């Protein structure tokens, strides 16, 4: 049965190449736009090395301290004090880690080898021990800096392969000393390079908070849970810590943004209190729905017009089929199925195009340098393929639904007479 439909649909496509191409291009365009959005989101959300625990991590990247007596306030990244006093002590999360935000210090750290006048600009991440537990770096040599080194402020550093190569030019870098902003550090570990797609993991070198002056210690905090089910409990505990701050620093009160999951964190939503964040999230959701609606609706109307014209040309055929006993739903399914083939061909082309778009426009879509690589593991995944098919189906239903319905409802006598009034 469907084989016949399939053959018929292909013949129809061949018969009228010009219109088929237009219909396929229209579908491909819509699917390209939607898939670009979905693939971009997927890259930002997928849990893969090195950010292997994104799905069970909560993020706090913004704090507001308000003096209720004088109505003045300070806001910004999480200060090291807040991290140390109110976030490290959290009991529910498995690990709590703070790292300087990826947008700070880009790439402003001066790296030199002792005795050499050559200076390399590098992207430095200032972090702690739990960071190495939340992330999964592949160490080619050595190890992360240890808790002991962190606590006593020993200048130990982990560097990327490329940076090690740049400084030591092929010599073995492990255990060597180099200068970070003119302060000597010893290399304790070397890791494989990280793609800038991973905002929390990316860097050229990683050093402990305790080796930097206090003014450099501001962070984005990651709270890794045993499983996402613990999220409400963690949020609850963070709220308790805010209360603790309030009793200790009255009249000052503290607001810690979120903590939010990876999805919301990646969207960069801002707000100075819980209500603002909730409403900002709602606005973002509405915006997304609105954009998807536009992206689906306009091509659907477009294709709908085309299907309608196409079916009008075939009313005679439909009339004959009905005269020979075809049921309404048979006609309906046939038209939808035929259209689905166009949608699927368009879908495949659209998906391919969306990869091209994501790749060519990665600096805008993913906010990474134009020459950076995108790991393949983030590109092709089961949810993405499922999404393509779902989008094809929706476009198909939207664009062919009404024409198919009308074709199936037509009176036999009218269709045989080519009279659509």
């Amino acid at each position: 049965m469907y084989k016949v439909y399939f053959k018929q649909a292909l013949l129809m496509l061949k018969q009228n190449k010009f219109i088929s191409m237009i219909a396929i291009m229209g579908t491909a365009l819509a699917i390209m736009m939607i898939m670009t959005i979905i693939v971009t989101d997927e890259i930002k959300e997928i849990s893969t090395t090195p950010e292997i625990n994104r799905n069970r991590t909560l993020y706090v990247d913004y704090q507001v301290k308000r003096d209720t007596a004088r109505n003045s306030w300070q806001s910004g990244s999480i200060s090291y004090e807040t991290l140390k006093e109110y976030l490290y002590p959290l009991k529910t999360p498995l690990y709590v880690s703070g790292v300087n935000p990826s947008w700070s210090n880009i790439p402003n750290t001066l790296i030199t080898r002792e005795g050499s006048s050559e200076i390399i600009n590098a992207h430095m991440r200032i972090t702690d021990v739990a960071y190495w537990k939340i992330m999964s770096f592949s160490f080619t040599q050595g190890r992360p800096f240890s808790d002991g080194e962190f606590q006593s402020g020993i200048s130990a550093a982990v560097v990327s392969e490329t940076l090690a190569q740049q400084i030591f030019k092929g010599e073995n870098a492990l255990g060597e000393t180099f200068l970070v902003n003119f302060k000597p550090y010893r290399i304790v570990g070397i890791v494989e390079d990280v793609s800038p797609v991973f905002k929390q993991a990316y860097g050229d070198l990683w050093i402990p908070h305790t080796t930097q002056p206090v003014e450099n210690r501001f962070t984005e905090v990651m709270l890794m849970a045993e499983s996402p089910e613990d999220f409400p409990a963690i949020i609850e505990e963070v709220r308790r810590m805010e209360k603790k701050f309030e009793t200790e620093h009255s009249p000052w009160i503290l607001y810690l943004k979120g903590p939010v999951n990876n999805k919301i964190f990646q969207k960069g939503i801002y707000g100075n209190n819980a209500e603002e964040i909730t409403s900002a999230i709602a606005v973002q959701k509405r915006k997304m729905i609105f954009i998807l609606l536009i992206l689906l609706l306009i091509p659907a109307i477009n294709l709908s017009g085309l299907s309608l014209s196409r079916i009008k040309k075939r009313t005679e055929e439909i009339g004959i089929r009905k005269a020979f006993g075809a049921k309404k739903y048979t006609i309906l399914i046939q038209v939808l199925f035929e259209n689905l083939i166009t949608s699927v061909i368009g879908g495949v082309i659209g998906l391919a195009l969306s990869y091209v778009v994501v790749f060519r426009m990665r600096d805008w879509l993913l906010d990474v340098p134009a020459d950076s690589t995108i790991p393949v593991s983030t590109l092709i995944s089961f949810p993405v393929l499922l999404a393509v098919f779902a989008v094809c189906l929706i476009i198909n239903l939207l664009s062919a639904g009404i024409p198919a319905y009308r074709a199936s409802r037509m009176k036999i006598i009218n269709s045989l007479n080519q009279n659509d009034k």
Partner: protein
Amino acid sequence: MIRHIFKIIWNERKTNAWIVLEYILVFCVLWFCVDYLYYMGKCYWEPVGFDTKNTYVLEMQKKPDTSFNNTEGNGETEVVDKQALAQTFLNRVKNYPGVENVCFSKWAAPFERSSYMSGYYIDEDTTHNVTFRLRWVSENFFDVFRINTTAKEISGWDAPGTNQILITPNREGLFGNEEYSVPLEDVKKLTSSTSDRKEHTVIGSAEKMKDGYFNSYFCNILLPLVREEYDLREMQICLRVSPGADKDFEERFTKEMREQLMLGPYFMSSLKSIDKNARITNWPTDDLNGIYAITAFLILNIFLGIIGTFWYRTQARRSEVGLRLALGSTRWGVKKLIFGETLLLLFIASIVGVNICINIGHTELLELLDIPIANRMDAGIGNEQEFINYALAFGLLAVISLIAVWYPARQAAKIPPAEALRDE
């Protein structure tokens, strides 16, 4: 002619309904895209208040551990003579070939993110506490950014105890905020509304200033940056380079001056062109790219939709066109009919679209969807904007539609009348 086209459109009302619907949707989205782009363009071309051509911002940092290294010996931090270091810095940078001038400032350099606001009373009026943006600048700031002032003498304005300041107006040329403002020339004295009640004498004014291309003009107070405040890490350091010397200036300067600018605990960490940097940090890349993407998508869709529908239609109306040709209509006449049909459909849709857009524009719907919208009050844009939007959105769609319909129209005009008539 037009009545005739109307009749044709009416006869094909069922397929036309789809095209009109699509036109309306696309028209509405384009309307807001045009609205936003026009606003952005207007803001961008308006003066910022600073001449940033050939200017650079230099950042100094402090070596992280100088203070605790030196505590070992005598238990006391080595005192760094910040002013002397700043003076050495000035001399060295000024002597570099191509550098015209160097200035220090705090919360003052253009396109920087941080700003400092404070409340003041204007003249003797203590009922209105007005907030202004404060900028602390050294004398050379005016030369580096080519700021013209009405003050008679700027040099020596930082003499201790004189508390001399300059002020800048808002968009309307007034000094104050939205609720309360006075003519710029009338302002003689400002009193701080903070607890110290410090009084400042206004010695002149400068052009209106904004913090970035797309910010609004806020009233500023320019105060002298006194030498006691000099700290190479804390200050913004900007330089102006002579027009011929700006090629590869960043690279050259960084390389050649690195050693010379190792001053005590300070070192140079970066040098950036202010213009280039502004285009990165002060540019709504995401919004603009989003608008370009949506516009391109809509235009392609309209193009495909029109070409497809009219192609079918001219096929379905072969005999009609044949008859027209047989009865003496010229081929150009047939084309004109099809072009006219397209434009009339677009026109009908645009009338509906305009009504929708103007009504939506007055509600908060767009804010609820976080769609980038023009801040008309800030940019001084009035109702003429609506005509511009209409003209641009209609014009764009008309051009695209005519290009799209050109191929089907040509096909129709090429129909041999005899053959088409025999079809019957």
